[in-house]
């Protein structure tokens, strides 16, 4: 009896999560997969239309291609830059800076605030036509009347900058990984005459490469899911010429503004597919560069 109880106790403890996972994730995902093959406007019953929604996005929805372009540009520009900044800062903080915990906390704060409505509004104020950036440029003699958030050529780059600023979370993880690298390895290399750069390149980076991969995958997924910033900064419409129409915003607009929940579901599944394929590619490419020993 005791053995049986022991065997099932784990499942009982798991139950709250399991119920949540089934009711709040798996079932809605299944429903959304079904809706993606329907014409569903939320107010009347969904009607089966086969793969029409998937065909439509490639044939008659130019916003879809715009959203793809903007999102890919954002992900491929912001994630490497964000990881680079967080890695460099993690190295700096590892140098035994005085008041390390204070710096660590201070640098982490942007990660907590980054995706918030308040920061998105602040971003508008900084990069607007009469924003802080243009005023600062004015002080050094550069007259600028560009609205960096409204100009289709620069808008997405302001959001790339916002993401770079949210370096705290990967930085903390990098810092923890760096601290795990045995000091004797670095000392041995130093004794053998390796420079600091060589120690970092040949020992430190390979040693923390699994963590770099982890941060890379997590940040790619997170960057694909960015919504609040583009929603607030573009006023919900995706900006001039869709310059801030991130994929998630396109899904939201189709689903809730235009009440095309069937089509929005199809878009969501395409996003899942894109993220899955990219993750597989990253893992495949990482085989050569990531060292687990």
């Amino acid at each position: 009896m005791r053995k049986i109880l022991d065997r099932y106790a784990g499942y009982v403890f798991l139950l709250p999560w399991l119920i949540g996972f089934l009711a709040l994730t798996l079932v809605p995902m299944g429903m959304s997969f079904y809706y993606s093959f329907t014409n569903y406007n939320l107010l009347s019953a969904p009607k089966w239309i086969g793969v029409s929604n998937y065909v439509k996005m490639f044939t008659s929805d130019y916003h879809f291609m715009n959203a793809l372009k903007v999102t890919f540009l954002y992900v491929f520009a912001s994630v490497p830059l964000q990881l680079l900044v967080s890695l460099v800062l993690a190295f700096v903080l590892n140098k035994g800076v005085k008041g390390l915990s204070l710096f660590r906390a201070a640098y982490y704060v942007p990660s907590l605030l980054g995706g918030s409505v308040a920061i998105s509004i602040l971003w508008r104020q900084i990069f607007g036509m009469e924003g802080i950036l243009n005023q600062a440029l004015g002080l050094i003699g550069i007259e600028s009347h560009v609205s960096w958030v409204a100009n289709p050529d620069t808008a997405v780059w302001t959001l790339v900058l916002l993401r770079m600023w949210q370096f705290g979370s990967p930085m903390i993880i990098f810092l923890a990984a760096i601290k795990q690298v045995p000091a004797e390895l670095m000392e041995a290399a130093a004794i053998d005459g390796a420079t600091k750069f060589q120690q970092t390149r040949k020992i430190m980076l390979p040693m923390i490469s699994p963590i770099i991969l982890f941060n890379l995958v997590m940040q790619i997924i997170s960057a694909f899911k960015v919504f609040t910033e583009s929603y607030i900064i573009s006023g919900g419409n995706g900006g001039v010429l869709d310059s801030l129409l991130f994929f998630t915003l396109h899904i939201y607009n189709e689903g809730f503004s235009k009440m095309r929940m069937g089509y929005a579901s199809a878009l969501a599944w395409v996003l899942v597919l894109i993220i899955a394929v990219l993750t597989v590619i990253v893992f495949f490419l990482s085989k050569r560069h990531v060292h687990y020993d």
Partner: protein
Amino acid sequence: MKREKMFVALGVAGALMAAGFGSQVVKAEDEKVTLRVAWWGNTERDKLYYQINDLFMAEHPNVEIVTESPGWNDYWTAQSTAYASGSAADVVQFQSNQIGEYCSKGVLTPLDSYVEEGIIDLTDWNQNFVDTGRYNDNLYMVTLGMTAQTLYVNETFLNELGMELWPEEEDITWDEFYDYLNEVQAKLGDDTYAGLDIYTNNDLVWVWIRENAADGYEWLDENGEFAPTEETLASWYAFSDNLRADGAFANVEWTQEWNSKAWEEGPLVNRKILFYFANANQFKTYQNSMEDTLAIRKVPVGNDGKHGDLLITSAFGISETSENKELAAEYINFFVNNEEAQKVFNMELGVPGSMKIQEMLAPTADPSDIAATDYLNMISEEAPAFVAKAPGVWAIQDEIASTAEMVAMDILTPEQAAQHIREVANEMIAENAE
């Protein structure tokens, strides 16, 4: 021992059950009926609704009002999902833009029987205002406040330029307005424009369309297809495009930047423009945010003299799923006809439908609100009859605006843009008709 434990357990269970039944009996005697009311809100607006709800509950001690008041954008997400899940509030606030979408799906209750029984009293109302709640001959909504597009003019600034404004009752055509804007622009310096570009104005485009449509066929033609012709849509795009080329409207970037600001901080208030199309109920906000004298004029008429004004209502409807429809109807009637309630509301969402309430509020109303009331009553007589937008039509207005950006950036010609809109609109309409 075991038996003792069992008796104790049974005793406890029995006591609990008795207590449960007891509380149910007590509950039945003073049970309150819950009425759920939803509106789009903000902190200040919510206070008005709460005060009115308190007044209603004071008259109906057995009623408890439960409220839901997300901000504008979240509100529509909340409502569409609530209706999808069958959990919508009893009384739900709508805007006339959405009437077609919701009424055509049968999720709202026709209110005609409540009006006939006198539960909702619409006598001495402006009937043109009442009609904004109709869809396919049934009344589904009762207005809380009425508005429509108007032309705001910074009259002080205009006079400083040595120009005079035309009389308020006079109609001018879009062509005349075009020339007037260019005349103004010729007297202005850098970074100041005669008007704010109209391409982002999702309400004004429908006025333009109605000016160019046959009565009754504003949204759908005889075949059930999108009625606005390519010519009408192309002329809408060309109007903005030409004024941008003339310099009387700014470029898209400038327009987007200034459009994103709050009303009180917008280009009209900051003397960046002189002419601005917006809803008439915003008059008080603009005027109180600036020292210059602000005037309103009618939206220009079509070049053949046809008016196209489209009344916009914020209105209460009753969900089909409500179990307290009659109480909901009583609540709506109280909200729109009770003098105390309307003193509290004080034209928060525009001009009241009841002429009696308009008269009651007039002596203490802000002069801008009085001007807006007179304006709304005037154009409601001149405008073609209100026809609710067909399902699917409302959803294409974002496409009309985003396509305008492509015209402004020389990616599409006005004619190509018009063709694109007709294709998209017909697709949306077909989806809704399936």
